[in-house]
């Protein structure tokens, strides 16, 4: 009896040591990840001189001294933030909507359907992953500059200074197609075969069977695509000669003058990080589920 109680006490101590160590480790890891965000937020409240002086010490993470929202006001005055934010969110949202539909359909074709040569076609698509965008940006610019369009000024040649020049080239991408293909391949064939026996068309199977059970992969694709589109810099810079079409990331450069306005940059970055955090938190559960089940990492 006494021995049993002793064992229980020892187990209890080990358990608590384990818990404390585990949480300490998790806390350290969490702090490492969250420190840049804290630095950004705290710095956004400080005047430049204080921000620069604090940046080499732990005081950088402490909101003290002459703190205010002046940097936010100055940042909003310097950059047409509402317009840039709208552009980024609009371009990202529209691209995302088209991407999820088209790439999942492509993934369905590669992962579920059987047709001759599909592995070769998929291999060719996946091979494009090794080509950096910077390599094709110039030829792509020359192509879009020759494409016809009907805009506010009527018919004209060239897509520069439009929203669709920032959307169309990015709707279909190899990584998202590959992601859907892999996920759909692992789905149980019985469900699809049962639907076929019930007389469902392939499109009905996609819409009624596959999509409803593929939440995690849609969430993963959505988050990764959202980040890629929201962080676009080079292409919008090349194709948006007018300020009214520029996204938030190009706006960051507005702060790099002869004397860099660091506090304003931090305020601007804090503000434009909000949509990313909101979007991630919204899809967090499904994203983690997808990573846990498929091992896909962003």
């Amino acid at each position, binding site marked *: 009896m006494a021995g049993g109680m002793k064992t229980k006490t020892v187990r209890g101590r080990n358990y608590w040591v384990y818990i404390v160590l585990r949480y300490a480790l998790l806390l350290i890891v969490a702090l490492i990840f969250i420190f840049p965000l804290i630095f950004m937020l705290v710095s956004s409240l400080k005047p430049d001189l204080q921000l*620069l*002086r604090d940046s080499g010490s732990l005081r950088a993470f402490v909101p003290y001294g002459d703190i205010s929202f002046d940097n936010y006001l100055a940042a909003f005055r310097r950059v047409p933030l509402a317009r840039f934010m709208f552009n980024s969110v609009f371009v990202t949202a529209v691209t995302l909507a088209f991407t999820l539909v088209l790439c999942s359909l492509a993934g369905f074709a590669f992962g579920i359907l059987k047709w001759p040569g599909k592995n070769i076609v998929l291999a060719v698509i996946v091979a494009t992953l090794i080509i950096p965008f910077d390599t094709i940006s110039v030829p792509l610019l020359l192509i879009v500059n020759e494409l016809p369009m009907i805009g506010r000024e009527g018919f004209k040649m060239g897509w*520069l200074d439009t929203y669709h020049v920032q959307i169309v080239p990015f709707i279909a991408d190899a990584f998202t197609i590959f992601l859907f293909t892999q996920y759909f391949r692992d789905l149980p064939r019985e469900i699809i075969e049962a639907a076929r026996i019930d007389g469902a068309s392939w499109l009905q199977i996609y819409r009624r069977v596959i999509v409803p059970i593929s939440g995690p992969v849609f969430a993963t694709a959505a988050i990764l695509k959202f980040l890629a589109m929201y962080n676009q810099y*080079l292409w919008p810079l090349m194709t948006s*000669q007018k300020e009214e079409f520029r996204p938030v990331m*190009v706006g960051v450069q507005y702060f790099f003058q002869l*004397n860099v306005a660091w506090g304003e940059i931090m305020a601007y970055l804090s503000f434009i990080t909000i949509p990313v955090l909101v979007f991630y938190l919204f899809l967090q559960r499904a994203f983690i589920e997808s990573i846990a089940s498929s091992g896909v990492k962003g």
Partner: protein
Amino acid sequence: MKRLMALVVVFVSFGMVSAQTELSLWYHGAGNQVERDILVGIIDDFNASQSDWQVVLEEFPQQAYNESIVAAALSGTLPDIIDVDGPVMPNWAWSGYMQPLNLSEASLEGFLPGAIGMWDGEVYSVGLWDAAVAMFARRSVLEANNIRIPSLEEPWSFEEFDAALETLQATGEFDYALDLGMAWTGEWYPYAFSPLLQSFGGDLIDRSSYATAEGFLNGEEAVAFGNWWQSLFDRGLVPGTSQDGADRDTGFIDGKYALQWNGNWAALAALEAFGDELLFLPAPDFGNGSTIGAASWQFGVSANSEHADGANAFIEFALQDKYLAAFTEGIGLIPATASAAAMTENYSEGGPLEVFFELSEAQALIRPPTPGYVVMALVFEKALADIANGADVQDTLDAAVDEINADIENNSGYGF
């Protein structure tokens, strides 16, 4: 009758407005409200001053401006008027992005040489201001250490300057005797440091032919410069390439550095901190005269502008002293003419920054006006950083020369 007259006036006015041909102007200063307001003021004045042209402004952030111009050139959508960084202009002119200016002879009279962009014997660009660097120092620090205060006529000699650095470092009062600004990568390196090389007798390239860097960037004088440069870091007299950007911005004001090699754009903040105690000293003379960099942002006309006459008219209009002075008062840069300087508080006779105008006038040497400069600037930056970090001086400079010469050869001599 009155109504009819009013209608006629409105109609005629409308006709006048709509008769103005639009001229697009791209500018690198997006996000700089002060600069923008001055430029918009000039544009408004120009548009109201005549009935032929209407300038429309499109702004770009400076860090992304060159890429935007190159993309526009590729897609054939360059604007009529562009602004261009002085040392980059020859590359854009050679690449066919720009055409020579057609200004009246009188319009450039009295301009600082660094504000006029020449390529192939013609003026391609002109700036409303220039920039200059100087050695920032505190009078009390120099006097306390018995260091002579140099003048434009009698700058520090090599030995004198080097001894001053050793003396200041030995005081133990400063982290470093001198802050060169190693944290500012990019154009700062060739702009601020190639004049030191030139003062040693070397250069980025042979300026008589622009065909080779052999013997200039790796010759005896250049190696002497490289050895001295490396010794600054070895002896712990200057912060290295890992310098914190924050220290660069505030280190001199905070008293971490005894001297600072910095530009006129940083002068007002230092003046605020030290007042009359602050000195802006000329570059040391390392044996071949004191030299500082020159040429800042300038206006030019794009090659495919169909309205070059209008673009030239705008640029000539913008070159009035009152606008030069307005930019100076607004953003602190050096006005391009003495008459404009006289209209400003800081650069007029007896003004706290007058010395920068004198430095620009007396010591300025533009970076090599060749299309290949954009490549040699990057090569030079890397070589200086490598030498600062301990690379063999001769080997590094030889490799830099090879890279520059290969680029010149690959581009068929850039038209020289």
